[in-house]
């Protein structure tokens, strides 16, 4: 479990860097391709609860340190993404038993659920920035900036899940359900 958690953390770190060099999709109003959320959500489905929290913390902090140009007068604090990512991470972790018992069809649906939850971080960031800057406006560019990565993740997430399932087998990691204590 520890080896697989560390591998996921390493992959999240590398994905966060690689994302910077992937140009946005022009015909989707410059939507970004995000790989790190799919990695995190796979971890949420297969890792035990403490590791999910650890991975969420690492992903959120890495994201903020790499993407937010933090200045003294910044209105988005480093660490906020950890809180924002915790919500979809816990939703995904709630489906871990379904994922671990499920067949490929169920797992594909959960990969698509991961895609649906991908824009959550961007939506949260947009809401916080709008609130802090006291300027809440909305147009189709903003809509695509938020939803576009989710649309792209519909294709990417199943592929990421497939690769991670293979790596999990390679490391002989067998995910187990969090069982309630026997009374």
């Amino acid at each position, binding site marked *: 479990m520890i080896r697989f958690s560390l591998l996921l953390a390493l992959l999240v770190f590398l994905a966060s860097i690689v*994302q910077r060099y992937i140009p946005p999709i022009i015909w989707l109003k410059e939507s970004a391709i995000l790989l790190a959320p799919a990695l995190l959500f796979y971890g949420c489905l297969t890792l035990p*609860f403490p590791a999910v929290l650890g991975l969420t913390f690492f992903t959120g902090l890495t994201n903020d340190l790499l993407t937010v140009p*933090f200045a*003294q007068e910044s209105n988005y604090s*480093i*660490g906020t993404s950890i809180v924002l990512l915790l919500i979809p991470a816990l939703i995904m972790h709630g489906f871990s038993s379904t994922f671990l018992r499920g067949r490929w069809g169920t797992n594909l649906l959960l990969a698509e659920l991961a895609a649906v939850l991908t824009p959550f971080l961007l939506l949260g*960031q947009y809401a916080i920035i709008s609130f802090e800057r006291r300027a809440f*406006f909305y147009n189709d560019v903003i809509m695509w900036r938020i939803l576009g990565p989710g649309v792209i993740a519909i294709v990417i997430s199943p592929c990421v899940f497939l690769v991670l399932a293979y790596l999990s087998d390679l490391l002989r990691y067998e995910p187990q359900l969090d069982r309630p204590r026997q009374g």
Partner: protein
Amino acid sequence: MRGTSIAALITFVVLVVFVLILPSGCKQQWQAAFLNTVSPIFHATSALTQGIGGVSGGFKKLDELEKENRELRTENAELRTSNSLLKNLQSEVNRLNRALGYRERSPFNLLPAHVISRENAAWWNSCTIDRGSADGVAIDMAVVTEAGLVGKIVNVSKNAAIVLLVSDEGLKVSVSIEGTQEQGIISGTRASSNYVPDLRIGFISKTADVKPGMKVFTSGTGGVFPSGVLVGTVKGFAIKELEGVATVEPAVDLTRVEDVFVITGTR
């Protein structure tokens, strides 16, 4: 919930609260330290990207050579190819001459730097350059090219620095409009396209005679940006309820800029 889960949850909450309540300066230092750690990766990736460009350029040349071999039967085609190559070389020489000339003419001390990573985030426009505190770069220094203003330094590590671009909504620059007495604050817009970003000048008088094509320069108010640096060209002017608002096209192509100068002082 098991004991380990409860302990993990408590640790998680404590850590998150700790990170969130850290003072700004401390967070800035964290980011600088992190940048210091990842900057070798940025340097390597940037070199690799250029290398890939070079390799693909090599393939292109081979391709062209093969094509040229076929076309060598006609002298006309050979001349066309040579001419095109010369034009490319000339434009490269011109570009370097412009940069060199600008550096020599400029009244500022300019430190040349190269963009090693471009931020792809939805709500922030920034890039990372290959110069840091070891080269004398410090927070709040202005970054320019021979074409105009690029942004300002917001965080510095030993060998790299983060530049907040002028197209970012969070960067406010005091500017004046050429041919008028008008001054205002220019900033990027959140919903603008990264590829054709629009800047916006607020707080202009409603009666101002601002027309498309007028140049916008930094006014020097505030002390961060020196006065007289070109920011962009006015695209349009609209009168709102309380103020006039001008949209401005940036002077620098912020999506393609590769070589920049950090203003480290005046001569």
